[in-house]
């Protein structure tokens, strides 16, 4: 089993764990944690797509020939920033929902 496929499987599992959290856990904060787990799993997937066995960081050094592909990393970096924004927005909503309903739990 190559590292790549192994990591794809791990990412899949983490994604499902996150998905379960979003669907099944009643607490809003837990749901947001679930979203974060899903996000990191997708990032893990993207990074493992870009990585090569024995590849080095995409920094030009003398003597290094085999770089990992930098493009997925750029993608992940931007997606991470967006993820923080989403998390912040979601958390502020959760706080407001808690404040105006008196409980952080979602009903219905």
């Amino acid at each position, binding site marked *: 089993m190559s590292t790549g496929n192994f990591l794809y499987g791990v990412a899949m599992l983490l994604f499902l764990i996150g998905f379960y959290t979003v669907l099944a856990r009643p607490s809003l904060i837990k749901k947001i944690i679930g979203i974060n787990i899903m996000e990191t799993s997708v990032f893990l997937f993207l990074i493992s797509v870009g990585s090569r066995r024995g590849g080095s960081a995409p920094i030009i050094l003398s003597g290094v020939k085999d770089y990992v592909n930098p493009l997925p990393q750029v993608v992940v970096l931007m997606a991470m920033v967006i993820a*923080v924004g989403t998390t912040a927005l979601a958390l502020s909503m959760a706080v407001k929902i808690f404040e105006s309903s008196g409980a952080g739990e979602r009903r219905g």
Partner: protein
Amino acid sequence: MSLIYFLVPFLLVIAVATVFTRDLLAAVIIFSAYSLIMAVVWQQLGAPVLALAEVAIGAGVTVVLFVVAVCRTTREEKV
């Protein structure tokens, strides 16, 4: 690479632990550990910049946000 094989089960266990911890503050702290391990995995995969970013953003900023939110709402998760 062997470090990854060592870390990944740990990652999964921690993720599951985060999900099933009733105390939200504890869950958030476990989640920060999850982020740190994830950062190490990424570093191993040849993405040191991203690993750094994950430490700063995932285990740093996000967790702070979570802690603030938990403090302003409630610690326990009702089922």
